[in-house]
């Protein structure tokens, strides 16, 4: 049966609140991005163009929120990472803000507070799982960072040396050396 859509400016009673989430690096390139509404930015090309535009508008001024191309985007940045959560321009901004906080906090816990690109890239699998635990097809699945991390979980603590690849061993050795030099 056809429904007449409400013409008023009341918010729509739906669970589909998040239109997209993404993490960009400090050149505005996509690290991870998910869009949940088939009608909004359907192709990767449009998405990337939108992300470029979004990045250009937001990377200088840290103003928390911007309305762009019909979407309300809340954002937060740290060192060389930019976190965005997008919702319809007709949505409660504070709900979006809470999703952004959940995203940022869980990533931050997963990366042991080293929220920067290199560390994130090393833990991309966990961050992907966190994305998946926060939002499912536009529905907010969870917004409590500890429980999200709990479900993503199992950050493979310290893998026994035998199972690490040569590159990983080298990398961690390099790191230790660097820190000892800096001291």
């Amino acid at each position, binding site marked *: 049966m056809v429904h007449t859509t409400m013409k008023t400016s009341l*918010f729509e009673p739906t*669970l589909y609140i998040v239109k997209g989430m993404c993490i960009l690096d400090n050149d505005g390139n996509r690290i991870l991005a998910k869009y949940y509404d088939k009608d909004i930015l359907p192709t990767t090309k449009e998405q990337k163009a939108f992300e470029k535009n979004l990045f250009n508008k937001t990377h200088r001024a840290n103003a928390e*929120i911007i*309305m762009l191309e019909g979407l309300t985007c809340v954002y937060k940045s740290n060192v060389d990472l930019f976190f965005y959560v997008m919702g319809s321009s007709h949505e409660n901004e504070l709900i979006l*803000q809470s999703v952004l906080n959940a995203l940022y906090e869980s990533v931050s816990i997963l990366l042991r507070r080293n929220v920067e690109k290199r560390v994130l890239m090393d833990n991309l699998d966990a961050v992907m799982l966190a994305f998946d635990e926060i939002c499912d097809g536009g529905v907010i*699945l969870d*917004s409590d960072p500890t429980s999200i991390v709990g479900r*993503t979980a199992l950050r493979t603590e310290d893998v026994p040396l035998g199972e690490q690849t040569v590159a990983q061993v080298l990398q961690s050795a390099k790191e230790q050396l*660097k820190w000892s030099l800096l001291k």
Partner: protein
Amino acid sequence: MSSFKRDKKEEEEGGASPYKNLDKTIVLQEARYFNETPVNPRKCIHILCNILYLLNQGEKFTTAEATDVFFATTKLFQSKNVMLRRMVYLCIKELSSMAQDVIIVTSSLTKDMTGKEDLYSAAAIRALCSITDSTMLQAIERYMKQAIVDKNPAVSSAALVSALHLSSSAPDLVRRWANEAQEAVNSDNAMVSYHALGIVASSKKNDKLSTVKLVSRLCRSPMKSPYALCLLIRLSAQIIEMDESEASQPCIEFIEYCLRHKSEMVIYEAAHAIVNLKINRDLAPALSVLQLFCGSSKACLRLAGARTLACLTARRPAAVAICTVDLENLISDPNRSVATLAVTTLLATGAESSVDRLMKQISSFVSEISDEFKIIVVKAIRRLCTKFPRKHQSIVAFLAGMLRDEGGFEYKTAIADAIISIVEENPDAKETGLAHLCEFIEDCEHATLAVRILHLLGREGPKSRQPSRYIRFVYNRVILESGPVRAAAVSAVAQFGAQVPELLPNIKVLLSRCELDDEDEVRDRAIYYNAILDSGDQQLINDYIINVANPGLIELEKALRDHIATKPDQLFDIKTVPIVCTCHQLHKKDVVAVEAKKPMQKSMDKIYDETLSHIPGIERLGEIFKRARPVDLTEAETEYRVRLYKHIFDRHIVLQFECINTLNDQLLEQVHVRLETPPEFNILSIIPCQKLLYDKPGSVFVIVEFPCAYLDSLGTFGATLEFTVRDCDPNTGNPDPGEGYADTYPLEEFEINCSDQIKTRAATDDWEDTWEYASKSPEASETFSLPHININDAAKEVCSHLGLPKAAISGDSLVEIKGCGIFRGGAPVVIKAKLVTISTAITMKLAIRSPREDIAQLLLSAIG
């Protein structure tokens, strides 16, 4: 040290990003490793991560590639590593839309879903639902029901959310899980109850009564999760909006109660709902919350506050005026979105004296905001000029300044539009406006804009005090621009020649130069105009240069289509197409446009037009006048659901009975509606619905002619559904052999009343003038005593009888209803009613003015 720095840089460039130079073919090659036994989980996770990263970057996988990877991935179910398993689920979800035969993993996933490991179950459910289609759903139904009431919140949430996703493709199946979902609403876990509420509400979307029950039950014992509260507020607001009766009172109280909640999210949701409700409530508590938000240190809160206030300006400017001080503080806000909203809102509500100051403020940051916001600013300024015509000098100068700045096509168009409309509306601003536009086209990269402006110069230029000064600007285009612009410039030049006799010789010289142009169109126009001007025949010049009659493009298109369809071998006569009048309608849109883009939706009107256009003979009824609100003619949960759409035409009414067959073991054929009409109505034809399949809406149309006399056009109709039933297989939908049997189904009575036949709107500022203006027309008035107890209820009921919106009601102790409308057939009516409580009874004086006295009488009788 410097070498160390360089080292570090290199390290970041090369070593740090293992994903930088990923190649699809290599990654696909790597995926073959999954087939080995045993596998190294870490290595597998890394490969899966690479695949997901590539997909996320937009790398295209062919179906074959995706299927290969998918099947390789399924091998990994052998591993017990939790992290790996989770990545496998993720991969399955991503690939499910690309690969073939994905249902192969159903059994593996079902095993995980029902297994003991909670971390598996939740994710497995979600993966499973992404690969399942409605036909497979029955197999897992039992597990889903169990999962919904699982005591682990993650599992329960996952099942609920997946059910919601599935409900778009298999609504009935999911409706069967409603009991479990209902149970989950009462869960202790905040997220579970939120998701459960969401799914319960969406399954009851069609059933208003049970939604009301649900909401009012939950309002009494509010939920813990702020998200759930927000959703509940939205549902409540929807109920209040649809139904103003007493039943919604608890909802209103609930929303107001939420204003005192501890979570800002809920407070804002409540304030937003109150402010946007159409009912007349005291806005003060909600406004004070918004004011508080405007002063917050968080940009999100400030934006939320400012945006909601901006929305309110259109309907309650006085209410927003109270918040002026708070908005003033925001105009220099570091967040430009907030600042823009504040400035545009102030422009809409402020006094003439503050205009200059505000515009100065905008110009300080206009370069920093996005194009869509600039357009909002331009529109606000344009409205300002209608409001304060005396300010045109500074406004046009400001717009011209913006026109010179960088900006995209839409932005430039908005500015040019604004200047053009100011030029058209305000004679004082004409000369300055045209001068600015002339300057703009000197350096304009958008051909369409240049063409429009040239057209305007051609129309307005000759009437100005010094027409000759524009010719230079116009003719420069002929020398410098592309073909279409040159052609437009030639037309504009010709206008000068036609209207200003002193310039004619010079114009002819210019036109003859254009006759040598490279572009066909330019040359043709030049020759054409030159010839007409040479003739010296004033009538000819007037008809073909100055006042060229343009048929409306939409009508022209329609006429041409009709012509091709009906009589392609005859000549087409353009004179049959109606001419558009060039009168300009004043756009009185909402005062501050905040929504830049709304999701595109095919408008309901379009859908109905399409369905109606299939009715034979529909074109003879003329243009549709109005669509009345649909009425349900059956209870919500019955075998057959019928909803009535009344399409009103000038002298006819098309009744569309939209039927839904909710029995999956029946197929209805030859569905008719038998109507019992009042004697004056005349049934012209009935178009039956040949076949009504399970859950597929089908419509029966009945065309009824209105009685000749308007006074007879109210009445009650009885209706019965008649059809032939054939039993069919519930799964395939194939009918059983045999004839079937005839059956009938009684429908509820319905009415054709006044509100169906009139298009109305509430009083606007100029209502008093309209009322005075209508004093020459006949007036019908009568005094009624109404049986109501509450004066507001009485007013609402009167409005609903007359089809007036609730916004027409004003006043507290002495309630007034003011509105105007158009009756079918085109007669205007102006309505005024006064209600007053005398001792305990409510008395109403209703007066209606209309050129058609019988219509005025009819409206009176609608109340009586």
